[in-house]
């Protein structure tokens, strides 16, 4: 479509084959059709059992339900009722995160918890910031193009139409996008906050181009989803229903088409028979403590990077003594984060960093390799939010406490914060394994080892210095910096063979042909884009492949499901 026509149609085109936004209740948040949700017996062999109702799992369920698949989604966390369960408050949002202990190690350990993964129906997107950029075409072939990382067994072309579909469903708002493969967005860009305006001015002086968006936040009404009210609590769950999460973008439609989302159900084992076929998922009903098993003709794991690997490692058997699909010692390897330092700048006027959604404007001008910078691949530049506890951590990280900290905190309203996402490379020893420590159900918890390589360190140092320069150019009166990480990905990557990957281009594990990796774990690289849109697009593609029976195993399972349905009728 021409850019002019796309511009004219902004905000007016309804997504195809997904009625979620129209199913929502304008007076109440959350999933309205939960009371008429279908229920399946544990002993009823469903066509597909999905572990995890997050970005990947929810899209997969919604797509295949529309093709008549009988699906149960097991979700460890609660089924949210946003009106009651979520609050506009940082400390009060603790329960949204996966806060059970995980052990972190390596030379550059990653602090997990509130910054990494969610727990509950909707997954981590319930409290994600809302940036929804695509990966660049180059992300799928960094090994052959840049000599680092890994080539995916699929390309940008394979995902393109799924990116477009998901962008319409979330929907994504932003200016025309000049980087990667240029494209436009279904909703117009949002007005920018004082903080974003500051970043923009500084960038201009440095010759850096920025664009408004891309954010998965309605600009205008979509179905029964209202406009954003710029209250800035996106990372605490959007009580307005303006920011996208699968809870409102995919699960209402999935449930309308017969999916059961079984909350409070912690999967602890994928069951496999002697012929190496998955037969169901063993889980604990967290309310009763009861151990149960859902039978299924096929299984998709979508628990996000750490928990997906952990579930496979927990599923040991005589055939797989070191964990399911792990006879080649690949499960849990190449887990990745992005380097995400933030630098804040101080200005004479009041900026009110807490107003407006944290994601506002961004730049991908530094995304690709530029040899003059001295490292491979690059980073993206984005605004981030400012709320009191987050700001206190920032000030503390710069070495201030006591009276000095209080003084910087009182100065809160004069600061604008900017962050980067640096692409860090996939390394085999950055890995999820099982720790000795056990969780409340007696299952070993995950251990995540993380150590940066030289390229990673150079990338982060360069990006941090660029931000400092940007603020100085913008005549900031003082700057404060914090080093941190963001976004998990990898652990069960897709690849070309079982010796260096866990699944194939169709997300099918090499060892068990009716077991699929349907979340961010399957990604071999992360680029410097935020990952949620890509995770959803991948799940959308997987659903298309399964639904159109392009994946060979599935023909039999799909038929058997259909035949049972016919026989039962």
């Amino acid at each position: 479509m021409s850019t002019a026509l796309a511009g004219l149609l902004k905000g007016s085109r309804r997504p195809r084959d997904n009625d979620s936004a129209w199913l929502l209740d304008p007076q109440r948040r959350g999933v309205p059709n939960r009371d008429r949700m279908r229920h399946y017996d544990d002993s009823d062999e469903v066509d597909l059992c999905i572990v995890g109702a997050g970005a990947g799992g929810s899209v997969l369920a919604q797509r295949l339900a529309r093709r008549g698949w009988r699906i149960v989604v097991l979700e460890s966390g609660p089924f949210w009722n946003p009106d009651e369960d979520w609050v506009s408050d940082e400390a009060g949002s603790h329960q949204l995160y996966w806060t059970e202990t995980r052990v972190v190690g390596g030379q550059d350990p990653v602090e997990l918890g509130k910054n990494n993964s969610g727990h509950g129906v909707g997954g981590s997107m319930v409290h994600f910031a809302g940036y929804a950029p695509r990966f660049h075409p180059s992300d799928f072939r960094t090994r052959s193009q840049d000599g680092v990382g890994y080539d995916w067994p699929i390309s940008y072309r394979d995902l393109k139409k799924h990116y477009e579909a998901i962008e319409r469903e979330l929907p994504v708002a932003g200016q025309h996008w000049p980087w990667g493969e240029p494209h436009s967005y279904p909703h117009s860009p949002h007005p920018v906050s004082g903080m974003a305006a500051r970043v923009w001015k500084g960038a201009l002086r440095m010759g850096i181009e920025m664009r408004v968006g891309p954010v998965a936040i309605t600009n205008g009404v979509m179905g029964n989803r209202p406009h954003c009210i710029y209250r800035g609590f996106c990372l605490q769950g959007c009580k307005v229903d303006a920011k996208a999460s699968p809870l409102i973008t995919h699960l209402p439609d999935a449930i309308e088409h017969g999916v059961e989302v079984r909350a409070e159900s912690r999967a602890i084992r994928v069951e496999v028979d002697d012929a190496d076929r998955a037969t169901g998922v063993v889980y604990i009903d967290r309310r009763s403590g009861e151990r149960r098993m859902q039978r299924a003709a096929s299984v998709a794991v979508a628990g996000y990077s750490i928990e997906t690997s952990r579930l496979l490692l927990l599923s040991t058997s005589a055939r797989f003594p070191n964990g399911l699909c792990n006879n080649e010692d690949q499960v849990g390897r190449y887990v990745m984060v992005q380097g995400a330092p933030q630098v804040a700048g101080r200005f004479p006027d009041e900026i009110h960093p807490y107003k407006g959604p944290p994601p506002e404007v961004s730049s991908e001008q530094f995304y690709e390799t530029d040899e003059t910078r001295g490292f491979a691949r690059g980073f993206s530049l984005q605004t981030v939010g400012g709320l009191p506890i987050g700001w206190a951590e920032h000030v503390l990280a710069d070495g201030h406490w006591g009276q000095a900290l209080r003084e910087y905190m009182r100065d809160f309203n004069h600061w604008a914060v900017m962050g980067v996402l640096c692409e860090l490379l996939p390394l085999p020893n950055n890995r999820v394994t099982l720790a000795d420590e056990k969780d409340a159900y007696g299952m070993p918890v995950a251990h995540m080892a993380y150590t940066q390589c030289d390229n990673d360190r150079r990338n982060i140092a360069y990006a941090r210095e660029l931000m400092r320069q940007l603020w100085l150019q913008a005549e900031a009166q003082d700057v404060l910096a914090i080093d941190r990480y963001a976004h998990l990905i990898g652990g069960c990557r897709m690849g070309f063979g079982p010796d260096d990957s866990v699944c194939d281009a169709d997300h099918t594990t090499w060892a068990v042909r009716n077991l699929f990796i349907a979340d961010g774990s399957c990604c071999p690289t992360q680029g410097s884009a935020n990952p949620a849109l890509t995770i959803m697009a991948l799940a959308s593609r997987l659903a298309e492949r399964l639904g159109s029976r392009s994946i060979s195993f599935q023909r039999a399972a799909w038929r058997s499901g259909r035949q049972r349905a016919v026989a039962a009728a």
Partner: protein
Amino acid sequence: MPRGDRYRNAEHLPNLRAGRRAPPAATLPRQRRGTTPQMVGRYPDYDVMDSAHTWDAATRRVVEARLRPRPGRRFFSDDEADTARALCDTVTAQDRDPRIPVMLMVDEKLADRRFDGYRYEDMPDDDQTWRLVLRGLDEVAQRRYGAPFARCAEDAREAICEQFSRGVLQGRVFDQLNCKRAWTVVTRAILAEFYSHPWAWNEIGFGGPAYPRGYMRLGEGLREPHARPEAVHDDPVRELTPPAP
């Protein structure tokens, strides 16, 4: 300097001052409305609780609960509680009332085992780290000043915390504990509690929960109709009084 411009320049910021030290507390504006910790604040006429009636019920319940008296201590022992209170107040510079009861807030979090979702492989669980830190601080204080941490003078406590923050404390406990990581474990818990309290929001001029009202004035230098200006440089009363002949 024109009125209201006191904070346009950045002379008050520790990075720009000798020894990276904050300006003396006595020079800070006093709060006139609402409560702030130690009654200092940048927005003397701002009380975030004035907006509480505009918040949704769930949020209001959570925030208002923080203003009610805390239930009794459950995690720290009597001795630990003294040290913990002294640590919390030193890290947040609470040298007089009114104080945000940070120690009790941390106690509640630890008693409920509300941890942050990760533990460094060379560290115990957060609750054990707290007990070790408190024991370590008393040990260092006894050795240096002949008194437990809580009974040391303010500058002695600050000197210990300064070394704690750089990860260089030594002693029976700290030799076995990754000191730098222990500092981040305890300070992050302290700050998360302190800055969840509406009194702290008053001090820094944070708008607070904004649902369902939201914001409508996004640009730089713009203020919501209900927001209050920053403290002014000069005292308006004194300014209006003609100088004595």
